[in-house]
């Protein structure tokens, strides 16, 4: 268990008096893609948002239990949320570029974290991030145009570039392809496969094919509980739990 990147232990989440997650424990390996699947409202997004403390934004949300990232406890008052989030990038369901230029969208993170000393350095980071997100060739001539002028798939890759510009170790993806057409989805999936070499990726998805295509590990959530977790191959061919079996064969969900 030495290359464990994220270690969750007994995570409970309450929205007000309603419990959304029940004692989730999970071990996520470094430089792998882990897919969280399950029917709507099963808590997979909630769990994802615990990892970068995004649930803090919701006033009534209470998180307890333990999540360790690189052996550092993050469910604690003392956690430095800002540095945690700079280490864990996030890509959202709907592409959400800032209403700024393409360049400024990617430059935002490095600038606020003071990662660069000069304009040249900033340019280098922006270009390399766009390249890593597979977007550079498409936008290199119009970096000053607004990010919102891109197509949906390009916007989502711009958001990925924005996330990796601060050099995170983990990338959380919350249904990154649900607003995209099949071609844009295919491009993002290929990209995820490439990014796996350098980043630990956790992806929430509704598409079982997508989970099967891009992930090495799959976790199945149901009604706020983690039902089964294991190698993607195994989950999709020979799951231990009948609920998992029912879900992936389309009997419910």
């Amino acid at each position, binding site marked *: 268990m030495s290359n464990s990147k994220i270690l969750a232990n007994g995570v409970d989440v309450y929205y007000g008096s309603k419990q959304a997650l029940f004692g989730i424990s999970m071990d996520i390996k470094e430089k792998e893609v882990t897919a969280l699947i399950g029917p709507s409202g099963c808590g997979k997004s909630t769990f994802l948002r615990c990892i970068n403390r995004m649930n803090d934004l919701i006033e009534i949300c209470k998180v307890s239990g333990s999540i360790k990232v690189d052996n550092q406890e993050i469910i604690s008052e003392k956690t430095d949320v*800002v540095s945690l*989030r700079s280490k864990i*990038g*996030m890509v959202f369901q*709907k592409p959400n570029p*800032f209403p700024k230029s393409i360049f400024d969208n990617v430059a935002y*993170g490095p600038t606020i974290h003071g990662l660069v000393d000069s304009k040249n350095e900033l340019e280098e980071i922006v270009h390399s991030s766009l390249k890593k997100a597979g977007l550079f060739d498409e936008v290199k001539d119009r970096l000053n145009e607004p990010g919102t002028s891109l197509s949906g798939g390009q916007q989502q890759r711009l958001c990925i570039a*924005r996330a990796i510009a601060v050099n995170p170790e983990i990338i959380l993806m919350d249904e990154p392809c649900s607003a995209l057409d099949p071609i844009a989805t295919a491009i993002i999936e290929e990209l995820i496969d490439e990014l796996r070499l350098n980043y630990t990726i956790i992806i929430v998805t509704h598409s079982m094919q997508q989970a099967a295509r891009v992930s090495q590990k799959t976790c199945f959530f149901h009604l706020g509980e983690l039902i089964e977790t294991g190698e993607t191959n195994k989950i999709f061919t020979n799951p231990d739990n009948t609920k998992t079996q029912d879900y992936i064969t389309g009997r419910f969900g």
Partner: protein
Amino acid sequence: MFFWSLVLIAVGIFSSFIYGRSRIKLNSKKQGTKSKSLPTYYAQYVLMWCLFPALIVYFSWAIFQEQIIQNIVISNFEFIEGAVYNEGLLLAEIRNVANNPSFADGKSIEIINAASHYSSLRQISQISFYTSIIIIMLLGALYASQKLKPEFHAQHTIERYIQYILIFCSSVAIFTTIGIVFSLIFESLRFFAEVSIFEFLFSTEWYPFIPIREGQTAAEGSFGAVPIFAGTFLVMVVAMCVAVPLGLLTAIYLAEYASQRVRKTVKPLLEILAGIPTIVYGFFAFVSVAPFVKAFGQSIGIDASPTSALAAGMVMGVMIIPFISSLSDDVINSVPQSLREASLGIGANKAETIKKVILPAALPGIVGAFLLAISRAIGETMIVVVAAGTAPNLTGNPFENVTTVTVQIVVALIGDQEFDNPRTLSAFALGLVLFVITLFLNIIALQIVKRYRERYE
């Protein structure tokens, strides 16, 4: 007279309603078919045909009766050769005598004759008024009752009528506005016939006193409105200096930092500020703020006058805080949550997120809020009347007396004035300028706000 006619109309519509309902029930029973609409729609149909013609008669009588009677009385008046009459005074005298016969003592025979003529005309008018109302209501009901057949779609007709009524109501406001604009324009043209438009817009001397009677030794008036515009501008700038930072920071606190509970309490409280009558702000400016400004001015060695642009502007600034805070708060709130999450997700803190993402995204809407506040500020009257003074000083010193467009309009209209000299007419020209400026500010502001809304919806 008009009270009893209202009772008459009320009785008319009540009975027409009852009549319409029972009539359609009877008719459909006779034919053995069910009526196409519910009986109450037929009743409403009869009611409308009874009510609206009667209302038209009612209002035309109310508006024209007195005028017509007076014209007849005057045209039949036996004028004495050589005597000079003032028509208004004469009419007042005739009316007095007619209403109160004891005033007749010592009046000339022509006046007494005219007064009795006046009374008899009034009587005739009254009788014909009642008869025509009754007749018109009966005619309306008669016309409507012919349509009370079960196969008649009363509901469709009623809905069309209701639509007409709604259109009429909404056009009242529009036509009133158009009327006001035209009267402003025409009266301003009269003003500009006497004072050149270049003098008005570019000359710096405002001295709107002209000799009213012959032989009066007042100087020739001058109508250069530049000091007035400058005063308005100065007060507005002071007001915005107070309102923009306070309002914007309030909005940021409410939208980004305050908990739901605080927000729900504070926002309505702030909006109450906008509901305080402006004259109350005026007291406050004059009684509390102006003396303070004067004392403060003296303490730093500036000779401040008891009323000043600063005092009026500061209080006006407080008055428009809710405009800015409330509108900006709405705008900031409509910045999509996903942008906040994106920024925070990269590891930005709250202040960076607000400064670099939220405010730039909300900027057009915030600018729109500023422009609306400006147009409110330059149109504001009572605070400046009380606290800014009336001296048309061309100055940039906020400790001095200044005057604004609205104040000068008030000054021009105070007292018993005929609208035939440039002094009073100047009010219309100033009003026109004010109207044009605020109109443009509002149009620009609304455009900006609209464009911004479209972007996120």
